[in-house]
């Protein structure tokens, strides 16, 4: 059989349905891509797989039972990645896992495992960085709002950290890049992930403005002029992250 290209509807359930389908009769795959339903082209050679919620859930159940904690962690992180080839990389990993079972955990040097590991490291590293890069501002009504623009969809990886830390405060972390947000409810002590768009800039309280000024003042005092090293700083705080960081905005 010649390698084929597959499409799914862009949802997690759609992707899992596709994996369940492909792994039932392992085939060579050239490309897997997400295609929003109304953009599907009837005349391409792509095979499109319709989402089947039940099949997806059953597949996920089976997978979580089979995989080691470590492999599951890799998989979860890669599913949250925003990378042009992540679907295919994960497929290869699952294919190998089907052949090798638990042995896959030690196969760190296998190219298919190494690729998935590398991607998962990128996601994990960004998630870790955003534990520090979230900046809440207090808006009218006492809510704390933070905007972020990460490369990967890391919200699910950082939610619990913030829920533990800011348990007594009402907050939202909004991923403006992927259009989703975590809402934390301090009464119920629960958080959930929702799609979200911002229609207006939130209005800061006077106290908020004061703390922002204090923070900028503190930040600019800290640097030691004799040690200036902007390149190092840029490696640590890439320019694209700065629009959401209080200390880099006026």
């Amino acid at each position, binding site marked *: 059989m010649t390698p084929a290209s597959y499409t799914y509807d862009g949802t997690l359930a759609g992707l899992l349905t596709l994996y369940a389908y492909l792994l039932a009769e392992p085939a060579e795959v050239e490309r897997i891509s997400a295609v929003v339903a109304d953009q599907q082209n009837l005349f391409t050679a792509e095979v499109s797989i319709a989402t089947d919620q039940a099949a997806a859930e059953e597949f996920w159940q089976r997978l979580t039972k089979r995989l080691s904690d470590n492999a599951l962690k890799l998989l979860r992180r890669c599913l949250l990645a925003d990378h042009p080839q992540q679907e295919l990389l994960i497929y290869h990993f699952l294919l190998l896992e089907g052949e090798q079972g638990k042995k896959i955990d030690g196969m760190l*040097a296998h190219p298919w495992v190494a690729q998935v590991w590398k991607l998962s490291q990128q996601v994990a590293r960004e998630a870790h960085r955003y534990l520090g890069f979230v900046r809440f501002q207090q808006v009218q009504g006492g809510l704390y709002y933070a905007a972020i623009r990460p490369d990967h969809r890391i919200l699910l990886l950082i939610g619990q950290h913030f829920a533990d830390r800011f348990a007594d405060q009402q907050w939202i972390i909004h991923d403006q890049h992927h259009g989703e947000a975590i809402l934390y409810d301090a009464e119920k002590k629960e958080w959930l992930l929702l799609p979200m768009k911002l229609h207006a800039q939130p209005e800061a309280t006077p106290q908020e403005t004061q703390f922002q000024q204090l923070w900028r003042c*503190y930040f600019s005092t800290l640097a030691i002029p004799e040690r200036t*090293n902007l390149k190092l700083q840029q490696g640590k705080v890439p320019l694209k992250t700065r629009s959401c960081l209080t200390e880099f905005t006026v």
Partner: protein
Amino acid sequence: MAADLMDKLKILADGAKYDVSCSSSGSSRSNSGGIGSAASCGICHTWTSDGRCVSLLKILMTNACIYDCAYCVNRRSNDTPRVALSPAEVAELTIGFYRRNYIEGLFLSTGVVRSPDYTMELLIQAVRTLREEYRFNGYIHLKLVPGADPLLVQQAGHWADRVSVNLELPTSSSLQLLAPDKSRDAVVQPMRQVNQLITINRAERKQSRKVPRFAPAGQSTQLIVGASNESDHQIVKLSEQLYQRMELKRVYYSAFIPVNQDTRLPARPVAPLKREHRLYQADWLLRYYGFSADELLDEARPNLDSELDPKTGWALRHIELFPVEINRASYEELLRVPGVGVLSAQRIIRARRQGHLGLDDLVRLGVVMKRARYFVTARGRSLEAAALDSSSLRSRLIDKTTGRKPQQLSLDFSSPVDDETRSLITGQL
């Protein structure tokens, strides 16, 4: 809260910024009803234009001081405006910053006012306010004032995650010359006491988990490098003792940057940051790679090589031990191969259980082949045709960054808990 607070913040942050201990790791506190938690792996919140990580609100309670240490901006004889925050103001600032996720917690230091005891009490009051009134569970690093009563030292460790007293100068003679008001004893005494209290606390907590923790993130200290004439060998030896005998969690090195005109102080030393960087690398080798100070340096070679990292330097002096066969070498042997870090050594051990590794596999396991290629074989094969000879190897391995501006090591995470952060700091030595 007004412009007044802003001015105070500026002055008091400026006075604290030369203290390099920035890490907020090594303590885990869960949030029990209030606000905050201390994460066991360090979290940096931003980086300043000198590339240093910001994780704590690092601030002095006051910059007034009755002492006159030669190297210090806050010394008595400097003509600068003196200001102070009240314990309540410190607590309010900390909470305001913390709620906005600017910081991991507080690093509170101070000049000495009236007496060491009086000053220590002020610091403790600020921390108590945070812990008791605000129910703050975030990270707190508290400076101990040399000469303070042992009872106060004990209280400090009760409220803080980490306590520290800075040795500043490696030998008592330099301390006497540059910080005549402080005796070596006044500095070492609280350090010893804290070490004992930590040991006792550990034993008590084995008996019962209900015993409250004492300074769970341990203690650290700082050495100023280049203000006095000690060699790297003396410094690294001292650090080794501090880790072994005092069980310090970290020794920080701060390249001396003159802030005062003083005849007792040297002029600005050459390449101070490079030296600081090499000392951190050597320190890393002591703590995580199983090296001893005497393996890295000795009286005949008292200073670290500026052109080579200390591990590569060691390997070139022991060329007879190389190359090592990657499929057979022990973990300890792997750690000593230039280009192999802690993480890649662990991955090699795990991966080779599934079968023999080839040279190509090493790259995928995170080994830096640029350095490692001269020191390893895989299934008996090497990337280098000819045998090793240390002088020609040296010229190939010389740090390419040497000619450029000295690179600064970033002092962000201190704990090796998190595998991602580890490779960031070690740069895979």
